């Protein structure tokens, strides 16, 4: 044992134990894994969220100088300084923060007076700023020299042209609304309308014009009609090109001098530098989106391969969760160990997923589900894991090796990627082993439970269900359903619709879930909600005014800590300090409240004093602006802030008190009429009560008209959209799409025209040719293209012309009708009740049987036969016990061909009681039939009296049948082999050397191979004797006279000679027998296949690989052998070498039939699924879920057309596409009977073994194609 093998052994053992562990304690392990994931993801909380938000850095105002553009020079505090803080900023922003109020307030003032006069003062203030100049020793320095000179606005912003400054200083104030013209302001009748005229109505993400000009968020401005604090705030924003500390401090001191703010505590110590990241443009987005699309396609194609599990979606989800959480874990772990990610997470994420991959997960799933089903779940998981352990470890080692190589490229970015990938791989492995394996074990257990439920009723419902009359076809279906409550089945209608084209299926899905309507409705509701919330005159302002009113900020108590918006760099003590109000503030506030005689004294009775407070919430008011505020402002002038920074200087506070006279002077004449007096609460407290008075509500109503308009518009458009989609839905989905697939078959019929064959075009279906004549269910079928031979349970063999459907011969002659029906009805009914794997068959058969029994007795044609009606026993439950052992046998083998019960003793007893009048016949039947061949007396006897042959039929039924030329070979249950002439209906030869029943026959050229129930294999050869000498008895065999495709003339004497017997070909009964290309393949219940050479009966190979009895075998001229077993597996073998080519785990339950085309293997199983596999690779192409109980029969016409049997119909499928082409209903009366056997003839007609009738269906278009 080499080292590798040892290692391999050890790994596989470890995996085995691990699998046992996982499957034994699923819940604790999943909990443990979840805890691990959470623990590893915990460090992620510290990471900043990825995004393009701005980054801040603050420096003290004192000793500020612009950073030098050279990186190398900054040696000092390099650790704290961010790397973007290099060079001069784009601009310095100086804001002059104005708070103004009318004081004292008089009761007869209007609401508009709150802001009209304070706003009017802005013009004066702007003039002061504009004209400020610093006069010192070096000369006069005006604002024009230091301010940021802006040029044209962007051409696209024509409507802002009058509002934003051009060709001059960047100086923004609310006065820009009126072009900085006091006269315009005074003439403006409606200030609010002017301010709001450029506000967007939709959800805005960028800064609005109002925000730009006011320099603070709209809700802080106080310019609205229900401003209860009556304090108006705005800023004058000044953009500066250069930092001139002396000029700025002179401006600051002058403004403070002119408009003192005695209680202002704004800190003026820090310059905040704001760095903006690159905006993601469409050019960057497209590759990103592409990589994500590829990623999703990869995930889709990977998870699509998960198969044979209970919940495909659940496992797919678990797989994706495994990969994603392993990535999160890797990032978390890397952060924990101090490795901060510098790469763009969004960009490398798809590549990481692709590198880690979903392969292992899929391999695990496939390996586990392909373990034998009959094992315990624990063992299955353990076995599946240990089977794949080596390859998983090998792959893992390879990937780690590749990544290690990548690590040694010494490129930092690649090294970081590799580090993440390594940690990701390891954590992914951990999750696969613990999380996914456990989920898989739970899934498998659920599937086994479901299987158990599915199997149980089939066993339990052997006592037949209540018989229902055949005519009530539709009523019967609900009645049957309770019999099989746990089966997973499709509705018959959806079965027909199963292979609809994808787009129709998508639409069908939409229609079923009403997805479109619901989405639209939800969307409309959300949209309206957003509209209501964001409308400037709407809910949001109302809410905020309410909130600010009720907040105790203005009161003496400790104000709550307002956290400034924006991203604060952690660990900046100054800003932390600044948000805490200190006691002196409170003191000063209290002092100002007791200052009655400031301005407008003597009017205290008339109104209340208002005072302006400066609280911590006013600190750095620009933080409350949208982070796109500055970039959008500068982008109007075609200046980009991407990857650059601006420096924001501390604001200059300005407090304005206006006396009532001023307010009255600036009042516009129209306003007095339009606005009612602003009713303020009478108490001295400012806005303590929040009662919406009538006036303000009216005003609000006036303002909200636009809101209502927009809402109505939104509603209307939503309704129109819904209607439109509804119409589309009606157009796409015809009303009757659910009705038995009629529309579907009609559509498909257009694709399959039949007019070449005399059928009227698209409306007609393919009319099957029904061959009637058999009394009982047909058991065996054989055909050679020209003739068709069928044998029913009675043992009656009929020969049909495969072209015309005429019955040519009946063997034996139909005479004993009444008798046979009596006996074999009984036989039939009980033949089927145990074999039914579902309740469907049973009820059909039983109803069928019961009807026959109850039908009026037919006239007695033959009085010489005993009356056997007393033998009819309808108490099936008793029978079951008797025959239970045999039931098991039959469930294993091919059900059609075995009779489970020997009636000969029963019937024989009846005959004895009847009397001796027919004893001669009985004697005759036993003797001459056992006799050998060419006995002319027997031949004569046979021809003159058919009775012996009847007796023979009675004694044993035909279990297998084959046809070649004009000879029929029939194998009987008593081991007798008979050769009949198909045209004349005469027995040509017979051999009864074997005693065990012949379960399968192969008739190839002049050889007959018979497989018997005891596992032995007999090789016979047919030899003709010259017809000249009729009496020649056992003459020399003249092999040369036999043509290769023998057409035995009726005058020849045919001898069937046993040439070789393989007495113990198999330990157990042979269930499948096929021959092609000079090879004979047998499949048996002993789990093995054997390959024999036809010429010398030599056993070439014994093929082992199945873990259940062989149920289906296929071999063709290319020496490819396919076999299906009870274990649900399909094996492909190479017959030349005897090696197994591939092994597919195909079905849950037996593989019931198997066939191949040149490229596909098609199998059907007890689970009613038809699967189509790629022949060369063994990959499953797709599968078709069949209706219950009809998955067994299938046939292939040419390489592209598949025929399957259904309930009273056959369906044609296109193998290449998996599309249902057509469903042909086989007559009205038989609709409820399943088609059990399908035989494809050479002229592309199909024969279905269909109760007691045969149907010939021609597929004309196939002929067309074959030409």
């Amino acid at each position, binding site marked *: 044992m080499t080292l590798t093998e040892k290692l391999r052994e050890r790994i596989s053992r470890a995996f085995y134990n691990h699998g046992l562990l996982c499957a034994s304690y699923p819940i604790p392990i999943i909990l443990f894994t979840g805890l691990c994931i959470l623990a590893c993801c915990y460090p992620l909380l510290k990471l900043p969220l990825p995004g393009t938000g701005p980054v801040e850095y603050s420096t003290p105002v004192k000793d500020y100088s612009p950073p030098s553009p050279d990186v190398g020079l900054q040696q000092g505090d390099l650790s704290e300084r961010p790397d973007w803080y290099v060079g001069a900023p784009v601009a310095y922003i100086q804001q002059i923060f104005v708070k103004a109020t009318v004081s004292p307030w008089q009761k007869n003032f209007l609401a508009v007076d709150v802001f009209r006069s304070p706003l009017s003062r802005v013009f004066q203030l702007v003039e002061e700023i504009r004209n400020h100049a610093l006069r010192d020793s070096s000369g006069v320095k005006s604002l024009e020299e230091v301010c940021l000179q802006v040029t044209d606005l962007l051409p696209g912003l024509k409507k802002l042209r009058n509002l934003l400054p051009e060709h001059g200083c960047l100086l923004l104030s609310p006065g820009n609304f009126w072009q900085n013209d006091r006269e315009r302001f005074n003439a403006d009748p409606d200030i609010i309308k002017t301010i709001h005229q450029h506000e967007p109505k939709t959800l805005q993400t960028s800064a609005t014009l109002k925000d730009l000009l006011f320099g603070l968020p709209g809700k802080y401005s106080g310019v609205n009609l229900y401003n209860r604090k009556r304090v108006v705030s705005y800023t004058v924003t000044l953009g500066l090109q250069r930092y001139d500390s002396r000029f700025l401090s002179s401006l600051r001191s002058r403004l403070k001098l002119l408009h003192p703010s005695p209680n202002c505590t704004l800190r003026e110590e820090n310059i905040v530098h704001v760095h903006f990241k690159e905006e993601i443009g*469409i*050019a*960057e987005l*497209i*590759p990103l989106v*592409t*990589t994500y699309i*590829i*990623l999703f*396609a*990869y995930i889709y*194609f*990977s998870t*699509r*391969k998960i198969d044979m599990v209970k919940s495909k979606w659940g496992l797919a989800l678990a797989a994706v969760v495994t990969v994603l959480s392993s990535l999160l874990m890797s990032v978390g772990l890397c952060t924990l160990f101090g490795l901060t990610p510098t790469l763009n997470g969004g*960009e490398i994420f*798809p*590549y990481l997923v*692709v590198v880690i*991959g*979903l392969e292992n997960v899929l391999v695990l799933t496939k390996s586990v589900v392909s373990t034998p089903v009959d094992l315990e779940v624990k063992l299955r998981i353990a076995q599946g894991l240990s089977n794949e352990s080596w390859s998983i470890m090998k792959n893992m080692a390879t990937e780690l090796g*590749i990544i290690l*190589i*990548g690590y040694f*490229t*010494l*490129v*930092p*970015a*690649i090294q970081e990627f590799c580090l993440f990938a390594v940690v990701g791989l390891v954590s992914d492995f951990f999750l696969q082993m613990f999380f996914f394996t456990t989920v898989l074990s739970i899934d498998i257990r659920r599937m086994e439970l479901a299987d158990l439920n599915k199997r149980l009723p089939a066993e339990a419902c052997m006592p037949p269900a209540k018989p229902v009359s055949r005519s009530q076809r539709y009523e019967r279906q609900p009645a049957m359903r309770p019999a099989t409550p746990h089966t997973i089945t499709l509705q018959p209608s959806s079965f027909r619709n199963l292979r609809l*084209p*994808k787009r129709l299926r998508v639409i069908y899905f939409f229609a079923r879930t009403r997805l479109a309507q619901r989405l639209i409705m939800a969307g409309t509701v959300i949209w309206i909600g957003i509209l209501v919330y964001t409308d400037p005159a709407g809910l949001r302002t109302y809410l905020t005014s309410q909130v600010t009113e009720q907040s105790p900020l203005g009161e003496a108590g400790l104000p709550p800590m307002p956290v400034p918006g924006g991203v604060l760099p952690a660990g900046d003590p100054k800003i932390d300090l600044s948000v805490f109000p200190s006691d002196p503030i409170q003191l000063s506030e209290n002092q100002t409240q007791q200052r009655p005689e400031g301005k407008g004294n003597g009017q205290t009775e008339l109104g209340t004093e208002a005072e302006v407070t400066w609280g911590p919430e006013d600190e750095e008011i620009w933080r409350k602006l949208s982070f796109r505020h500055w970039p959008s402002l500068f982008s109007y002038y075609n200046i980009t802030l991407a990857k650059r920074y601006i420096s924001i200087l501390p604001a200059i506070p300005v407090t304005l008190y206006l006396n009532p006279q001023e307010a009255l002077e600036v009042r516009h004449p129209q306003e007095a009429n339009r606005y009612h007096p602003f009713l303020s609460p009478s108490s001295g407290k400012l806005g303590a009560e929040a009662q919406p008075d009538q006036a303000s509500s009216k005003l609000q109503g006036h303002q909200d008209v636009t809101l209502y308009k927009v809402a109505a518009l939104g509603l209307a458009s939503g309704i129109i959209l819904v209607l439109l989609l509804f119409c589309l839905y009606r157009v796409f989905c015809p009303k009757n799409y659910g009705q038995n697939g009629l529309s579907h078959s009609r559509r498909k019929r257009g*694709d*399959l*025209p039949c007019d070449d064959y005399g059928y009227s075009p698209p409306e007609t279906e393919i009319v099957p040719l029904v061959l009637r004549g058999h009394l009982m269910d047909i058991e065996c079928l054989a055909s050679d293209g020209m003739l068709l031979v069928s044998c029913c349970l009675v043992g009656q063999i009929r020969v049909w012309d495969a072209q015309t459907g005429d019955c040519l011969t009946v063997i034996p002659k139909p005479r004993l009708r009444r008798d046979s029906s009596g006996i074999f009805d009984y036989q039939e009914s009980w033949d089927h009740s145990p074999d039914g794997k579902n309740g469907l068959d049973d009820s059909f058969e039983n109803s069928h049987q019961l009807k026959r029994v109850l039908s009026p007795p037919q006239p007695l044609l033959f009085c010489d036969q005993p009356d056997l009606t007393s033998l009819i026993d309808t108490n099936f439950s008793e029978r079951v016990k008797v025959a239970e052992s045999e039931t098991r046998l039959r469930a294993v083998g091919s059900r059609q061909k075995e009779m489970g019960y020997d009636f000969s003793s029963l019937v024989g007893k009846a005959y004895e009681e009847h009397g001796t009048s027919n004893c001669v016949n009985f004697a005759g039947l036993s003797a001459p039939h056992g006799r050998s061949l060419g006995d002319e007396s027997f031949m004569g006897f046979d021809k003159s009296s058919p009775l012996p042959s009847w007796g023979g039929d009675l004694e044993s039924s035909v279990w297998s049948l084959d046809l070649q030329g004009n000879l029929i070979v029939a194998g009987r249950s008593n081991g007798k082999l008979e050769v009949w002439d198909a045209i004349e209906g005469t027995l040509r030869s017979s051999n009864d050397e074997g005693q065990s029943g012949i379960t399968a026959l192969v008739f190839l050229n002049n050889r007959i191979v018979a497989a018997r129930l005891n596992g032995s294999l007999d090789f016979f050869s047919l030899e003709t004797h010259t017809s000249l000498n009729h009496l020649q008895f056992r003459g020399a065999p003249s092999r040369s006279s036999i043509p290769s495709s023998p057409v035995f003339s009726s005058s020849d004497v045919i001898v069937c000679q046993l040439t070789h017997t393989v007495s113990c070909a198999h330990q157990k009964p042979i269930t499948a027998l096929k021959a092609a290309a000079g090879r004979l393949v047998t499949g048996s219940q002993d789990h093995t296949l054997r390959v024999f050479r036809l010429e010398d009966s030599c056993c070439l190979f014994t093929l082992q690989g199945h873990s259940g009895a062989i149920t289906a075998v296929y071999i063709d001229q290319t020496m490819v052998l396919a076999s299906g077993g009870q274990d649900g597996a399909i094996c492909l073998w190479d017959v030349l070498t005897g090696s197994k080519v591939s092994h597919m785990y195909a079905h849950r339950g037996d593989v019931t039939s198997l066939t191949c085309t040149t*490229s596909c293997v098609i199998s059907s199983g007890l689970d009613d699924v038809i699967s189509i596999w790629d022949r*060369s*690779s063994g*990959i499953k*192409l797709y599968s078709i879920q069949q209706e219950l109980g009809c998955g067994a029969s299938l046939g292939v016409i040419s390489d*592209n*057309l598949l025929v399957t049997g259904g309930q009273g119909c056959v369906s044609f499928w*296109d*193998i*290449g*596409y*998996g*599309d249902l*082409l057509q469903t042909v209903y086989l007559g009205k009366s038989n609709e409820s009977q399943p088609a059990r056997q399908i035989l494809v003839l050479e002229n592309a007609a199909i024969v279905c073994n269909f109760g007691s009738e045969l149907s010939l269906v021609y597929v004309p*278009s196939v002929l*067309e*194609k074959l030409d």
Partner: protein
Amino acid sequence: MAENDAMPTLPKKCGPYISSVTSRGMNLVIRGIVLFFIGVFLALVLNLLQIQRNVTLFPPDVITSIFSSAWWVPPCCGTASAVIGLLYPCMDRHLGEPHKFKREWSSVMRCVAVFVGINHASAKVNFANNIQLSLTLAALSIGLWWTFDRSRSGFGLGIGIAFLATLVSQLLVYNGVYQYTSPDFLYVRSWLPCIFFAGGITMGNIGRQLAMVSLEQGVSCLLVKVLIYMSFLPSYIPTSYLSGGRR
């Protein structure tokens, strides 16, 4: 387009399975078209990556548009990818060794993702010098081949394609059609052959998968894809043609 001409020639009354038999030739055409559009799409996307790093220089007025290279680049890439994608399965057939290694769509998707990733790395990652970049990319390309192809014929064809394509781009640069910002290997970047090699492997992978699939199923689904691709084709041809012509 070609498939519009080919469609009416089918007999009207044929069922779908008949069409799949009679249209072996059409199959080839459809595959070619699909490959062409995949090539065009990848060329556009990857060009965007290159433009961001200013690796290639095209006349400046073109850069403003989304289709940021000259108009002839995507069709050329598309044609090349169609040829490569058809050549690979054809070569497999002639050599008589069908490519069986990882023949699944998920693997193809993985391959495409890795290819885009290689391009991404070449465009975005800062390398110390060009040698390092080229060596890394060469290793990545070989790794791509080893992971997704592993056939000697594929390797040979990939090398041939890389050689030819590098030669062609050198000729183009020599004649002044476009240029690289910092050529370090006979007018072009030294990593160019690696990218071409990886692209050849990727397109071959797609082509092989298409050849395997479209014989069996999905002619209609391919047609849908083609139509989707065609819908954005007219949106870009006129603008870029004009801007290219103005130059």
